[in-house]
């Protein structure tokens, strides 16, 4: 499958990120006042004095052993830094995905089945409006309304304990879901319209079947196929959005780790986190491909 070259490409790109730094990366990390000796030491530690193919080999070798290098700032393995934070980010993504399905699917279905009626226009207008809204601003506004004014949710932080954390994640997850809702609703609606207008739906109705059966067995079953792919693509985008959302809501997840590391010039961490994010996307797409194959007999391998 095409996932393998993509995976290879992702690994190569992440490796190359470090080479984008103008000048000497070690010097960038330590600052302009650093002594040449410190710079040399760090250069050797990062392996930057080696020829590039050996650096790449070392990188690959590390990957096979689940070793993403060491953080310059925290002085601990990147992998362990990621491990402590990935749970929170994962929970955020899962919750946000659930919210996006709950929000977008009914709205898209409403718009598609009532095409050109007021409810369709309303849904499309709202989603158009949402296209111009930056996620982080939406998060702040939600925090103001539901946190500051209504006191329903904490304005920031991740709470404590299972339920506390879940409670604290609701607003950020809602924000992430709303951020992708406009695009998702539009695409889902188009997919559903395609199915609704298909000849086989006409055939089914001509048979004399009850409306609910036509809808469930014929419309939904077919509309699921493009929808699963669309959801997967948008969840990929959502994963990227969580980086910013964690910052807005002060959540100690992977995104915050990444952003803090930018300030710290902690390149190994940034590299490692980027790779993890890309891997997550690849996994999501793979899963959706598998699900699509289950749903669509035309796609299955003979």
């Amino acid at each position: 499958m095409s996932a393998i070259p993509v995976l290879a490409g992702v690994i190569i790109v992440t490796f190359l990120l470090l080479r984008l730094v103008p000048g000497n990366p070690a010097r960038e990390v330590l600052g302009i006042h650093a002594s040449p000796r410190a710079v040399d030491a760090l250069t050797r530690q990062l392996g930057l004095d080696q020829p590039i193919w050996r650096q790449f080999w070392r990188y690959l070798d590390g990957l096979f052993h689940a070793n993403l290098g060491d953080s310059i700032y925290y002085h601990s393995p990147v992998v362990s830094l990621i491990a402590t934070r990935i749970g929170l980010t994962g929970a955020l993504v899962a919750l946000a995905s659930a919210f996006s399905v709950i929000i977008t699917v009914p709205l898209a279905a409403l718009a598609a089945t009532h095409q050109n009626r007021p409810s369709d226009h309303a849904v499309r207008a709202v989603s158009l409006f949402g296209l111009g809204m930056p996620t982080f601003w939406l998060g702040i506004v939600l925090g103001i309304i539901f946190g500051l004014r209504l006191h329903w949710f904490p304005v920031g932080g991740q709470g404590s304990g299972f339920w506390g954390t879940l409670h604290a994640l609701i607003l950020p997850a809602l924000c992430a879901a709303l951020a992708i809702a406009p695009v998702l609703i539009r695409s889902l609606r188009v997919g559903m319209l395609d199915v609704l207008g298909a000849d086989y739906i006409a055939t089914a109705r001509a048979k004399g079947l009850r409306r609910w059966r036509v809808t469930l067995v014929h419309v939904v079953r077919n509309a699921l196929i493009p929808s699963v792919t669309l959801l997967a693509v948008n969840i990929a985008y959502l994963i990227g959005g969580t980086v910013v959302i964690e910052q807005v809501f002060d959540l100690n997840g992977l995104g915050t780790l990444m952003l803090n590391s930018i300030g710290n010039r902690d390149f190994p961490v940034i590299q490692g986190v980027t790779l993890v994010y890309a891997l997550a996307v690849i996994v999501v797409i793979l899963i959706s491909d598998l699900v699509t194959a289950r749903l669509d007999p035309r796609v299955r391998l003979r």
Partner: protein
Amino acid sequence: MSAEAVIGVDDAGESIVARSSFWSRARRSPTFLVGGSLTSLILLILFLAPVLARHNPDTLNLTSLLSGPTSQHWLGTDDLGRDEWARVLYGGRTDIEVGVVTVLFPLIFGVAIGTFIGYVGGVVDTIVMRVVDVVLAFPFYVLIIALVAFIGAGVHGIFLAFGLTDWVVYARLTRSSTIVARHQDWVAAAVNGGVPRWRVLLRHIIPNTISQSLVYVMSDIVLVILAVVTLGYLGLGLQPPSPDWGAMIGEGQAYIFTNQWQVLIPGIALLLTGTGFSLLGDGLADVLRPQ
């Protein structure tokens, strides 16, 4: 760009044809009109910023910090006493300017490479499409942030980051329509008739395949502006003292417990701008759609 429709036959048996031009179709599309007017209005206001802003966006007015709207400061002041109205105007200028300029390279490069691989196919096509897949495998914001982190914050970081990543959509779009166009009979006819291939590409294929990219450019501008603003919020975008909506929101976040205006105002401005461009893009799609 025009479309013809046969509306009847005259006495000599000749078909009577109505040519609907771009502008007549544009006039009939409400989305295009609303989007166009809104966007034009916003651009006009920002263009007239030096005239409309009554204060300099950088001047500090330490006697009036974080105030709400007053007669002196129409939209109030921020935490350093700077006039919000002026900052919104000048911030808008920079953000939109950067947004529009940043999409130019991806647009041109993406369309060019998409046309090339769509027309030529083969190994080059496969390789480029793999590269596209790899770029798309990274979540958008993660890649942009990572690139800016390594290249360096500021305008040039933004240009490079988007230059490296944003072209892929245009390449994909153009490639598909080029492949479709390439197989059309009229192309074969032109090539057989002796028209050199580059000319076929330029004069015949590209005008037909570029419409999808032009429609997408509008939403891409919105995307880029949003990304620039987001980077500004994170401190990775346009560096101070350039006023930037994102930085304004970021600075204001610390004060939301007392004054929410500093956070809300730039957001609303951004919302209006985004809606304007999106509507314009939708309208453009309506108008350019083959009849």
